[in-house]
């Protein structure tokens, strides 16, 4: 199997084999990261531009570190975005392209922006989050973390609890998990859980306990700021009464179930303090995998011509 791919927009576009290939590469990168000298030469002579139209701490840091570990030249253009306000995304892309960048890591508030940019540049565009559409890097690191703990995705039951409407991560995870053969059950306030999800092969439940019942993995779909707007749900108080991932809810899951959260955690609301601090909650694993996954993404895209194998 060989797929030539210049850009990486989301898990929707990837086949199960491509996802598995990235996860395998990430394992190798993790091995490298565990060496005393973390530097590897794979991206030597290449340049990586970070173009973040939305504030980000975790995503940006992990991409930046990943590029540097691979010996690329890294330029963070986030500070210049303000100076270029008024210019179109394509203009920005062409500028970067003309200067000979090899990778553009783009985070943008509007869905589809990475695709638009990719069409007018030679550089590889990696989506670091576009609107409410996808966040492939974060989803791949979730998949990597799940794979480390659970081995395979076949027959795995994964529950996603929270805001499914405003979560690009949840969307990417749903694409990835369903492609890899996991059973995905979601639950959240009805206003934040699009019924169309059932057409993706996802099971929707109003009752969180039903979604979590006998689950192997529980993912948190963060409550975005939008939803604190009282149009979608009455209050955080009421949210936590029905959807907080706490000890009571976890009783329905399998004994060895793991809980993931992309951070930052709204402790006590999305997830109880007790669960966050419990060994079931593997947020730390997620963080340490985040750089490895991004290294794998960069590395694979740098092999254009070799493609996915």
């Amino acid at each position: 199997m060989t797929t030539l791919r210049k850009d990486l927009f989301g898990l929707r576009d990837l086949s199960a084999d491509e996802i598995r290939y990235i996860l395998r590469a990430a394992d190798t990168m993790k091995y490298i990261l565990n060496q005393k000298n973390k530097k590897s030469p794979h991206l030597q002579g290449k340049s990586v531009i970070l173009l973040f139209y939305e504030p980000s701490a975790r995503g940006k840091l992990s991409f930046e570190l990943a590029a540097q570990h691979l010996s690329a030249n890294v330029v963070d253009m986030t500070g210049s975005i303000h100076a270029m306000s008024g210019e179109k995304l394509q203009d920005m892309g062409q500028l970067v392209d003309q200067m000979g960048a090899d990778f553009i890591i783009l985070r943008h508030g509007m869905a589809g922006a990475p695709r638009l940019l990719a069409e007018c540049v030679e550089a590889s565009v990696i989506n670091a989050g576009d609107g409410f559409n996808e966040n492939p890097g974060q989803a791949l690191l979730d998949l990597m973390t799940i794979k480390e703990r659970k081995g395979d995705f076949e027959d795995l039951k994964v529950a996603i609890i929270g805001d499914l409407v405003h979560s690009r991560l949840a969307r990417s995870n749903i694409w990835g998990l369903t492609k890899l053969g996991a059973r995905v059950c979601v639950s959240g306030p009805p206003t934040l859980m699009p019924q169309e999800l059932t057409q993706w092969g996802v099971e929707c439940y109003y009752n969180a306990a039903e979604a979590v019942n006998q689950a192997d993995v529980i993912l948190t779909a963060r409550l975005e700021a939008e939803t604190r707007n009282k149009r979608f749900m009455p209050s955080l108080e009421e949210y936590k009464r029905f959807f907080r991932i706490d000890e009571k809810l976890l009783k329905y899951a399998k004994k060895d179930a793991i809980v993931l959260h992309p951070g930052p955690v709204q402790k006590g609301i999305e997830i109880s303090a007790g669960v966050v601090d419990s060994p079931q909650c593997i947020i730390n694993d997620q963080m340490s995998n985040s750089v490895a996954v991004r290294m794998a993404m960069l590395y694979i895209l740098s092999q254009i011509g070799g493609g996915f194998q």
Partner: protein
Amino acid sequence: MNLLLKNCTLVTAPFDAEQKYDILLKDGMIAEIGSIAPAEGMRVLDVGGKTVLPGLIDMHCNICDPGYEYMEDIVSASRSAARGGFTSITCEPNTNPVIDNKTVVEYVVSKSKEMAQVNIYPYGSMSIGCKGVEMAELGEMHDAGIVAVSDGDEFIDDASFLRNVLQYSRMLHLSVITHCEDRTLSANGVMNEGVTSSKLGLFGMPKEAEEVIVARNIILAEAVGARLHIAHVSTKGSVQLIREAKQRGARITCETCPHYFMLTEAAAEGYNTLAKVNPPLRTQEDVDAILQGIADGTIDVIASGHSPTGQLNKAREFDDAGYGVSSLETAFALSYTGLVETGLISAKRLVDLMSAKPAQILNLHHKGVLEEGRDADLIVVDTDEFYQIEPDHFASKAKFSPFAGFSVKGRVLYTIVGGKVVM
């Protein structure tokens, strides 16, 4: 104490209306229906062949408590309800404070348990302060005892907000009750827009004000699969919209009130403020359509539409007078007289409209049917003698009615709530 009702006529299925039955009430439940010999420890009430029905359940009632106790309060409303044969009433959330959080729900529930003669079930306001902007804590209120979500007879102009409420309420299996009135259309109107308003020189509220919102709400509820209940239907167009929605299989229910099929806008002649209600009394064409809707099942429920307003509020210029009618004590007799006595529907169907169907819509699964194991809420009515409606003798604080002097059948003789005779 167990209560044995002797010689009851039962008109509901599966009973034979020609036969006489005995009903034994035990521990607040209907223990047995059949031929029962009195035994020790039983209080016996011989109803002398009168008709026994499941207690009526009112889906549209303003209790005005908390906040407007000078108009009505939980005690006076419950007495009024008992007189009118309602063993359960609901409470619109447009009180002060608004029933938009569990604390107010708990107030209504606990005060009702302590002081009311009938069951009182509050509705929760869908929005904070009935303002249609921020969603109220529907889940918390559900756990505290609300039986439906309501807009409190306010106009929710924000369709996206209503859509969210309809979606959210699905999680709680609650019906969403909406008063349908586009206030940009009804604007300064004080009665139906038509011949009478022209003759009287009063601003009118057009039918479209109701119908555009009925149509909108039906479309929204259908789109998200929610349970929508349309309050006090008053126009022919609304009946038709609901009929079509039901034919499509939408989960829509609706109610009307006795004044919408017993009176027309003509009742407002002479600037009769007692006939000032919202939605307004309409025309004969609308009355005919509502009667037809009742007969063919389009209309699910007859509610009292009890909305007290201070008596002084009625003794004013028509424009300034308050909206409302005191109807807990007249709703059953008017419906019986106007629908059953005229041969339009059977007594059994009237029980569906005023008890069985409201129980279903409000998830009151132990009520609405005369059956062993159900709650011992029932009423004994006299369907033979005519009597006159005399508002002066109402138990309600609102002692007025556009039906004063009407001769009606269907006097409530006894009201039994939870196995106890309360009236």
